Every structure is written in C-alpha cells, then in structure tokens.
C-alpha cells in the first residue's frame, strides 16, 4: 500500500476503559475477522490476560478499511496494556505510530494513567483522537468528561468522539477520524531501509519474530539486513502482518507495520528499539526509545533442587517474549540454587510467577520482593543491593539510600483526608495538590518505591471505593534509615523471608510476618518457633504447636481406594514443601508472606 493510504495508531487509556473491547470492534467493523470468529477480548491471547481481563502485551493488527471517500486504507492498530507496570509497552508501541486513540470511560472520567499516557503521546508528537467510551452506561457523564479533556489534558472538547465499544456505537466515526486526522507516514529523507523493532516474541519453529515498523524503504524476504545496535547481519526469511494471526506478505513498505523472521535463535540478539537497515545502505539509526530497567527484584527457586536446569530453561523461554524481565543465577542458604529476577513492578512479578507455575508447570518459591538500595560503605565504596541477604553488616555501613517515586493520585474530594493518611503511613510527603474539577483532586507526592510495591494501589482503590487511580515515575534516591529484618524458624534464619525495611516499621512488620507465618506453616510433629529479629535482637515471636496426631479414625472397605489416593496426594504435597532443618514450609507460605 502506498504511504498515503496507511495509518498507524495505538489505543491508549487508563486500565479497563475499554481498549481491548474497542479494538475487537474495529476488527469486526473492518471485516478483519468474521462475526462467527468473534470472541470477546480477541486480542488478549494469553490465558492469563483473559482470566484477569487485562492486557499484558501490546498486540499489533493490520486492517483494511474502505473509507467513505471510496478509497481503501491500511490501518495498523496496536492495542496496549493499561496497567502502570506495563507503561513501557505503551511507549514502545507509540514510537511505531503517527497517532493514538485515547479512550476515556464516560463513567470514570480522566484517570491517572489517562494523564500519563497522553503525556507520552504528546512527547512523541502523535495526533491524539479522544474517544469517550461506555456512553451506554446509565451513569455515563459525557459533558463532564468533555470538560475534563479541556481542563486536565488541554485537548479540545469538541474533538472527542462519543462511543460505546460494547454496543458498537461510534465505531465508524472513529475509523473515519483515523483516516482523516492521523497523518500518513512520510519518508525520513535518508536513503534505503530503516525499520524500527518495537517488540518481539519467540516462536519455536521460526525463532525470534520481531515486530517492526518500516519508516523508510521496504523490507522483503531474501534481503540481507543489519541490526544497527548489535551490528549483526541476517537474511530476512519471512515478512508479514497480523490479522490478528500472523500472515505472510511479499513485502513491508514505507509506513507499514508487521513482523519479520530471520532465523534468529536468541532474543538477546534483537534489542527493542533497534533499527534495521539494508547492508548495502548507509542509513542511520531511528530515534528508538529509552531502555527500561527492572525496579523490583525477587529470588525464584525451584522447590525440587533437581529442577534447577529446567527452571533456567523456562526462565529463558519467558524472557523470549518479555524483554523487560531479567534474571541471573544466585544462591540462598535456605533455598539453594535459584535466580535473582528483575521485574517492572509487582503485577509483572506476579504474572511471571504465575506463568511459570501454570504454563510451565514449575513448582517454585519466590522470595520477598526488594528494590535496589545504594549502600555507602564505611570504606567509601558504594554497593548496590537488590537482595536483603547481601546487605552488609551494619558496622560496615555508612548510609543507605533508597529509590523514590513521584506518584500522581487522582481521587474524589471526600477521600483526600484518608489518602493523605495513607501517604504518610507509607512514609511519603505530599508535594502539591491540584483541583481537577469540582469533584476531584490530583495529589502529587514523593514516596519510597518499596512502600508502594505491595498494596499501595489496592489501598487507594479501597479508600476511594474504586474511584481513585494512580500513576508514578521514578524520582531518584534518598538517604533513609533502613534495617534488615530477619525471620527465624526454629532459630535458623530463612533468608528468603528477610527484607530491608525502614527502622520505624521494622517491628510492626516483624510482628505481622511472624503472625502470618504461624498461620501458614502447618503443624509438624514438633513445636516450631518463629521469630523476627533486627540485627540479632528478637522483636516478635510466635509458636506453632506440635501436631498431636495424623490419622483419620475411620477406614473401611469402601474407603480404601479413595483414602489411598488422598494419602498419595498428601505425600506429593510434602515433597513440594521446602524443608528448613526439620521444618517443612509449604510453597503457599512464601506467597502468603508476600501479602502480609
């Protein structure tokens, strides 16, 4: 297709405002998929995405649309995730586009990530088309949403299209706006091919499948191309697009979006944001985008030590489709050999763990998540610590700095008091408050990252009865009085439960952890003592009483088969517990402790 008839756009929004549902509609309306193939959340292809009703990966699709002017256009859509943890997917997708559909839930109005995503799009000079979605809802408030567009985002209210992705209202108008308002791709002015790699996934047969956007020239099978960043030269095997399943094309031209394969076996060789050029040309690199770095770390260990190699292989496979996820080998006194893994946030961490358990059938234990601390030693050296086990002894420490984040919380006026209490409970300070409209304010505050990791978002939701939302960005480091909290089980420190906490919170945290462990460690044949200690000083203790019997006092002919199966299952369960000295700690304990 000639560039004048191509439009590339992303769909951005706050979580759950209806991006995926609208994408489905567009696919349907353009006949990309027939009604009978229609399932809800078509673009959410991972089981996990469907189950949780959220999008995790960005999904590109190519559609053909016959516009009212009688001409046919190639529309390349990229659905994006809404959750903060995956904001980097959004910015990557945006860099492949000229425009963005901004979806706003008419009942919720502008929320924290609406603001954040619009800023991302503006920064990249994209044309934004506002869509006010869910107008079918009885409590939809279109005029107010229009007002918020003007007031909060400085987007002309009259440019918004009213729609209901669910009822199919406004879909054609959206498609027309895409054609009319979003600029078509233009050559970069350089000579020869320039294509941006904005995502990739791994296919067992084809190797790395790279998602590309051609900015200049064209991509064809058989071409020899260079990956500028890695310096690698490869032969293009296949080029194609998604509808949403991958299909072959004979070329990808200027402005088009699709994928290529080139027999690349290792995803490390393809860097996100890299530029692909023709070996014979001298075209330079495209702007690319900022690399993202994991912010949250946790150890992942196999329950059965013999699964180590297997786990390693599966982590590798996961990384193939998730470039934000990093891992490296480490050992733990309590858990043996495992991996230190880095994640973008807690949702990302949960998702990786869940995929390992479910898709790969691995029995794993994950340690308490940690951020990266900068430790200034008394000898003047600086250490980066992302694992509490490696925090040096206090006597060698001069000071510790912890990572901070700037958070933006939008909340209805009546909850400001509770929100401020939450922020100060989390060791944060409010920087300023802005009135967004008659009902809502935005609180900008500075908080330690480790405080928002676990339940900050959930707490906001519950304080505001679901009406609050938040977004954050990283804001450097700050010196803090941090200490290491150890958990001891029968006097043995279980390093997997250790964490670095602020001194003022260490004791209450220790008590909470001890109480939680008491709940989740099953009774054993002897007494189990649980203690929390800060620098060797015990601050909390709990006891799990000894099991006095393990026998069901009833077993006759009819029960034998059933009973045998039950006992076999329990035996399997015991194998899946981790033993520390003589104490068995079930997998769930490690998960529950996360939530304590």
């Amino acid at each position, binding site marked *: 297709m000639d560039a004048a008839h191509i439009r590339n756009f992303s769909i951005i929004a706050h979580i759950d405002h209806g991006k995926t549902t609208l994408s489905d509609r567009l696919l349907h309306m353009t006949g990309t998929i027939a009604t009978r193939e229609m399932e809800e959340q078509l673009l959410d292809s991972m089981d996990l995405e469907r189950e949780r009703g959220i999008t995790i990966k960005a999904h590109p699709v190519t559609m053909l649309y016959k516009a009212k002017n009688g001409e046919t256009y190639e529309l390349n859509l990229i659905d994006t995730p809404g959750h903060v943890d995956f904001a980097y997917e959004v910015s990557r997708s945006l860099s492949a586009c000229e425009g963005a559909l901004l979806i706003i839930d008419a009942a919720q109005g502008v929320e924290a990530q609406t603001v954040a995503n619009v800023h991302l799009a503006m920064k990249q000079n994209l044309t934004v088309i506002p869509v006010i979605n869910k107008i079918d809802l009885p409590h939809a408030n279109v005029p107010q949403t229009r007002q918020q567009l003007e007031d909060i985002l400085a987007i002309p209210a009259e440019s918004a299209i009213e729609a209901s992705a669910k009822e199919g209202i406004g879909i054609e108008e959206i498609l027309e706006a895409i054609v009319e308002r979003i600029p078509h791709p233009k050559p970069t002015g350089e000579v020869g091919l320039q294509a941006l790699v904005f995502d990739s996934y791994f296919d067992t047969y084809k190797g790395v499948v790279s998602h590309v956007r051609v900015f200049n020239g064209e991509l064809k099978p058989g071409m020899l191309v260079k990956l500028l960043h890695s310096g690698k030269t490869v032969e293009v095997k296949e080029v194609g697009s998604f509808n949403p399943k991958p299909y072959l094309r004979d070329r990808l031209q200027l402005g088009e979006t699709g994928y290529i394969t080139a027999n690349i076996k290792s995803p490390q060789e393809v860097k996100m944001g890299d530029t692909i050029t023709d070996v014979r040309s001298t075209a330079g690199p495209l702007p690319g985008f900022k690399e993202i770095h994991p912010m949250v770390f946790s150890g992942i260990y196999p329950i059965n030590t013999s699964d180590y190699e297997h786990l390693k292989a599966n982590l590798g496979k996961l990384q193939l489709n998730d470039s934000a996820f990093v891992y490296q080998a480490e050992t733990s006194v309590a858990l043996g050999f495992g991996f230190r893994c880095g994640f973008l946030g807690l949702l990302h961490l949960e998702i990786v763990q869940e995929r390992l358990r479910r898709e790969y059938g691995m029995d794993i234990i994950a340690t308490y998540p940690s951020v990266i601390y900068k430790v200034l030693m008394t000898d003047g050296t600086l250490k980066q610590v992302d694992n509490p086990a490696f925090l040096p002894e206090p006597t060698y420490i001069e000071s510790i700095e912890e990572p901070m984040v700037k958070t933006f919380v939008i909340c209805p006026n009546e909850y400001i008091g509770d929100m401020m209490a939450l922020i100060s409970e989390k060791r944060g300070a409010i920087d300023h408050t802005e009135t967004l409209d008659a009902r809502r304010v935005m609180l900008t505050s500075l908080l330690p990252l480790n405080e928002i990791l676990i339940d900050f978002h959930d707490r906001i939701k519950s304080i505001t009865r679901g009406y609050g939302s938040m977004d954050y960005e990283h804001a450097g480091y700050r010196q803090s009085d941090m200490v290491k909290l150890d958990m001891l089980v029968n006097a043995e420190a279980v390093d997997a439960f250790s964490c670095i906490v602020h001194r003022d919170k260490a004791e209450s945290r220790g008590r909470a952890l001890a109480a939680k462990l008491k709940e989740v460690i099953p*009774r054993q044949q002897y007494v189990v003592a649980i203690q929390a200690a800060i620098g060797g000083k015990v601050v909390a203790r709990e006891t799990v009483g000894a099991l006095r019997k393990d*026998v069901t*006092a*009833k*077993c006759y002919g*009819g029960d034998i*088969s059933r009973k045998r199966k039950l*006992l076999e299952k329990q035996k399997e369960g015991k194998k899946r517990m981790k033993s520390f000295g003589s104490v068995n700690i079930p997998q769930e304990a490690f998960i529950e402790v996360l939530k304590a």
Partner: protein
Amino acid sequence: MSDAIIGPVVSLYVHVPFCARKCSYCAFYSEPSTGEEINRYVAALTREMEWIQCQRPLQTIFFGGGTPSILNLRQWEEILTTMHRLKLLPAAEFTVECNPATVSLDKARLLHDLGVNRISMGVQSLDEALLDRLGRVHSREMVFKSWDILRKAGFQNLNLDLMFAIPGQTMTVWESTLAEALAMGSEHMSTYEVIYEDDTPLYAQLQAGEVAEDEDLSCAMFEKLVERTVSCGFEQYEIANFARSSIPAGLTATTIPPIPDVPRLACRHNVNYWRGGQFHGLGPGATAYVAGVRSRNWANTQLYCEQIEKGCRAVESSECLPPRRRAGETAAFGLRMPAGWPFATFLEVTGYDLQKEWGDAIQELVAQGWGELSKDSFRLTSEGLRFADSAAQLFLGD
C-alpha cells in the same frame, strides 16, 4: 515375586442405599425412597447375588448403608431366603447395620432366626443436641430401647458406633456419652472422628465459619476414648475399633479360626479389609476387591436396577494397581491394626517380602519411635498409630 496366592472370595459386602433422611455429615451413597423402589432394589440385589463366585458358605457378610434396617420384614425375608438357597449362608460372621429408629422386635427376631449374628448400631452420640446437629433421625431413648430389643431377640455380638470431634461436642459431653455407651456392655465398639466431606451440609457450615475444627480437642478425645475403652476390658485392634476377647456363653460365631494378636470378637469382615483380603460388593455404590481389582457399582439405584434387570453387571469403575503398588497399599492399611504385619501373612497375601521391599520405610519408622520390628513381624507403636496416615504414606506410591 509378585503373584499373591489368590484363594476363593470369603467376604461379601451389601450396600442398602436408603435412609429416612440425610445426616448432615454423611457422604455415603443413600437417599430417601418409596416402598416400590425398595422392592425393585431387593429384586435386583437377589439377582446380582446369583452371579457371584465365592466360597460357600461365606465367612463374613456385612450389610451396610444407608440404613439396612429400613427394609421391611418381607423384604428381609426375601433376601435372606435367597442367600440360604444360594448356600451363601450360614456365615460365621453376619453383620447388619441398624439405625436405632428402625428396630422392631419382629424384625430383630427375623434377622436372628435367618442367620444374622452380629448387629452394628449407629448410635453416634447420646447427647440430644448433638444428635440433632448431626441430623440423626433417632433420639437417645430409641438407642436404649432398640438395644433391649436386640438383646431380647438373641443377639450376643453387638457393636456400637460412636462419633467424636462433633462440632459443639465438649470433652464433658464426650466423656458422658462414652461412659453411658460402655455401660451398655457391647461386645464391640467402633468410633470415628467427624470428617468434613465435600458436598455435605457440615462441610458447608465449616466453610461458612459456623463451625470450627479443634485439633487439640479431637486429639484429647481420641486419647480419652482409648483410655476408657481399654480400662473397660476392650482391646484396641484397629485405630478406631475396639473388641472384647472373651466369648459370651452361647455365641456360636466361633467357626472361623482365631487371628493371632486380634481379639476374638473383632469384626472379621473389617479385618479382612485392612489385611488386603478379597470381598465382593453388591448393591448400588458398593465396592469390591476381587483378583486384585477394586471396582465400584453405580451409585445410582435406578441405574443399578436397570443394569441388573438387563442381565448386566452394574460396575461403574474399576482400578487395578500394579502388583507392587497394590502390595504397598495393603501394607499401609494393615498397619492400622496394632497387630501389624506378620511377614509370613504379608507374603501370603501380596507375594512380597515386606521387610525387603520397604526396608527403608520400616527403618525410618523404627528410628522415629513409630515402628516396632520383631523377628517375624512389623507393627506401629501406640505413638505411631496416632500418626498412621503419615506412616502409611511411606508405603504408598511408586
């Protein structure tokens, strides 16, 4: 070394799937029903009896339920005369389960006269409030009344079923139930701890937080049980089963040879289960274990009857473990008896040498103080019996 010596089947279990009303803890297959349905069941059952291959007469027979005593006189007569005609009777031990609400003197006499020589009475508790909570149809008074009727009808081998760890049951209540039950002077006592089975009202109450489990209390109750029964002259011959050794004058159930270390009035039928013996199972939902295969009839009376009427067996599922796993299962369940396993007996039943095949498990148990090894047998200690499920796991699986 895996072929057990499989002799003729000497035990028979018959399931009577009817109850007046469902108890709140019950996960057995049973349902309320009309006289018509029971007639149809009796016809199917007697037909199914014709097909079994076994030793004639049988050594042990057990009618369980459901509520076998719910059948009327005519229905019982039909079943028992059929069994005589088929030469399944007279059996050395023939037990019928009775609900205290359904025992009449006529019925008791009929059973006694036609070869039943042991009655197992489902008492469960002697506390009215708890009986109510369990959803039992009978009262305390009915227990005592039925008891007298059974004795009057001539039964000299009676069992009482009691439950403990019932939600709301205090130690005091349990002790007084125990004392009253022991005072009744039964020959046998079998007990069980409340189990919260899926799909029972009791389980739902547990989920809803209306009742709670108290592990320490149920353990104390179990200890109290063992202490009280033993001091009244019973012998604990399985985790939750107690029997007397002395045979009452006039009891004729002595035609089968005694089992070493097991009291004379132990329930032979159940001992056969725990020691890996074969048994047929007739009736809806009944299980059987014949020639190494465990099978189960359809737990659906209508379907069961239809199958039998068509001349087909009513087996819903069957399972045959590989010989070594089967032997492991036998080892595990046999250890529920304090007598444990004489190695010779185990070899005879399973074809495996217990000491050789599970030497590690035995060592582990002995080291832990849970097992006791002698020259020719292995058993669990009284401490080990309290952890019999953990011990069993060492013998199960591959």
